[in-house]
C-alpha cells in the first residue's frame, strides 16, 4: 500500500544532494503534497493502494525530481564563486608575485585559511568552504612528511602516533563531506595532485621532503599559473548548474593543469610519474563517489523499516 509512497520519498531523499536542512524541508513539503493528493484520490473512490499508485505516477520520476531540485540550488552567486576560488588565488598570487619567499606571509595565509575553514565548517558547510578546507588540511599532510625525516628513532614516533591520527582526521573530514555530496570531497582534494606534482618537480631527488629553493624560484611563475587555473576552475564549478558539467570541468581542468606541470618540468618529472599523478587524481576524484555509495548502502537497510507513510 503506502509502502510505494514511502519508497518514493526514500528514493528522493537518497538522490537529493542538498544540505540536511534543505533536504528535510523538501521531503516535508512533498509529504504535505502527498497527504493532500491521497485525501482527494480516496474521496474520489480509489482504494488506499490505488490512490498511492496514482500519486506516485502523478509525481513522476523520483530521480528526475531530485536532479531538478539539485539544479535549483546548485548555481552559486559570483560572490560565492570568488570566495570559493580565494585560497587558490592566494597561493597563485604568492608564487606569481614571489611572496612565497616571505615565510611570515605564508604562515599568515595558512592561519587565515584555517580560520575561514573552521568558520565555514561551523556555519552549515556552504559550498565555498571545501577548497578552504582542502588547503587547511595541507599542513597536516606536510607536517607528517617532514616528521619522517626527524633524527633516527623520532621518525617511528611520527609513524606510530602522528600519521594514524592525521589519517583518522582526514578520513573523518572526508566522510563528513561525502555525506553531504561526494563531489565536494573531490573539490576539497582537487589541488592535491597538482601540489604533489610540483613537490616532486622542485624536490631533491635523494631527499624527497626537502625542497630545492633554486628550482622552486625558477618554477614559481608556473606554479602560480597552475593555482590560478585551479581558481578559475573552482569559480566555473560554483557557477555551473548541471552536475555533469561540474564533473567535466574538474576532470578536464585537473588533467590540463597536470599536463602543464609535466610540460614545464620535463627534466624533473618522468612519464611514469605523470601516470602516477593522473591515477592519484582519478583516485582522489572517484574514491569519494565509491565511499558515498558504500555509506548509502549501509544506511539503507535500517531506514527501510520505518518509512514516513508506513508509520501513519
Amino acid at each position, binding site marked *: 500500500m503506502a509502502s510505494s509512497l514511502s519508497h518514493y520519498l526514500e528514493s528522493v531523499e537518497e538522490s537529493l544532494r542538498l544540505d540536511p536542512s534543505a533536504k528535510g524541508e523538501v521531503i516535508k513539503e512533498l509529504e*504535505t503534497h502527498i497527504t493532500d493528493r491521497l485525501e482527494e484520490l480516496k474521496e474520489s473512490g480509489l482504494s488506499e493502494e490505488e490512490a498511492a499508485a496514482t500519486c506516485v505516477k502523478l509525481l513522476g520520476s523520483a530521480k528526475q525530481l531530485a536532479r531538478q*531540485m539539485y539544479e*535549483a540550488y546548485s548555481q552559486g552567486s559570483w560572490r560565492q564563486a570568488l570566495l570559493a576560488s580565494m585560497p587558490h588565488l592566494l597561493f597563485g598570487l604568492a608564487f606569481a608575485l614571489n611572496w612565497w619567499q616571505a615565510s611570515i606571509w605564508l604562515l599568515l595565509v595558512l592561519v587565515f585559511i584555517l580560520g575561514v575553514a573552521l568558520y565555514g565548517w561551523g556555519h552549515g558547510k556552504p559550498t565555498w568552504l571545501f577548497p578552504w578546507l582542502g588547503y587547511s588540511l595541507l599542513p597536516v599532510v606536510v607536517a607528517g612528511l617532514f616528521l619522517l625525516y626527524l633524527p633516527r628513532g623520532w621518525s617511528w614516533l611520527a609513524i606510530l602516533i602522528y600519521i594514524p591520527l592525521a589519517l583518522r582526521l582526514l578520513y573523518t573530514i572526508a566522510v563528513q563531506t561525502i555525506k553531504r555530496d561526494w563531489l565536494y570531497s573531490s573539490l576539497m582534494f582537487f589541488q592535491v595532485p597538482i601540489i604533489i606534482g610540483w613537490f616532486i618537480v622542485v624536490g631533491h631527488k635523494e631527499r624527497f621532503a626537502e625542497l630545492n629553493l633554486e628550482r622552486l624560484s625558477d618554477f614559481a611563475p608556473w606554479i602560480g599559473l597552475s593555482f590560478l587555473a585551479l581558481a578559475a576552475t573552482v569559480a566555473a564549478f560554483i557557477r555551473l548548474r548541471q552536475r555533469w558539467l561540474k564533473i567535466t570541468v574538474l576532470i578536464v581542468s585537473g588533467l590540463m593543469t597536470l599536463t602543464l606541470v609535466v610540460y614545464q618540468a620535463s627534466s624533473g618529472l618522468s612519464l611514469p610519474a605523470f601516470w602516477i599523478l593522473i591515477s592519484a587524481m582519478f583516485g582522489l576524484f572517484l574514491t569519494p563517489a565509491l565511499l558515498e555509495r558504500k555509506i548509502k548502502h549501509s544506511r539503507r537497510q535500517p531506514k527501510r523499516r520505518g518509512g514516513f507513510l508506513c508509520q501513519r
Partner: protein
Amino acid sequence: MAQRRELMKGNIDSLLLCLLAQRPMYGYQIIKELERKSEGYFKFKEGTLYPALHRLEAAGLVQGKWQMLPSGRQRKYYQIMEKGSAVLARERAQWQDFINAMRLIISPESA
C-alpha cells in the same frame, strides 16, 4: 501532448509567477489552480513543480513560508517578491507582444 508539455516546460516560471501574483499559495493548491484556470490544458508531472518553485525561491523571485493550519498540519505558502513582480511585468509585456503578433499572422482575417 508532448508539444504542449514542452511549451509548458519553457514557461513554467511565468505561469507560477502569474498565479502567485494573485495571492500566496502552496504547491498542491498551485497545481489545482493551474488546472482549473487553464480548463485542464496545463497538466504536468507534479514532482516538477517543486524544483521550479525552489528555483524561483533561490533566485529571490518568490518566498516560501511554513504556516501552521488550525488542524495542526503545516503547509509551505509561496508569495511573490518585488523582484518577482518586476520579472513578471517584463514577461507579461513580452507575451502580450508575442500574442498580438501571432494573432496578426494566424487569424483568418489576416489572410
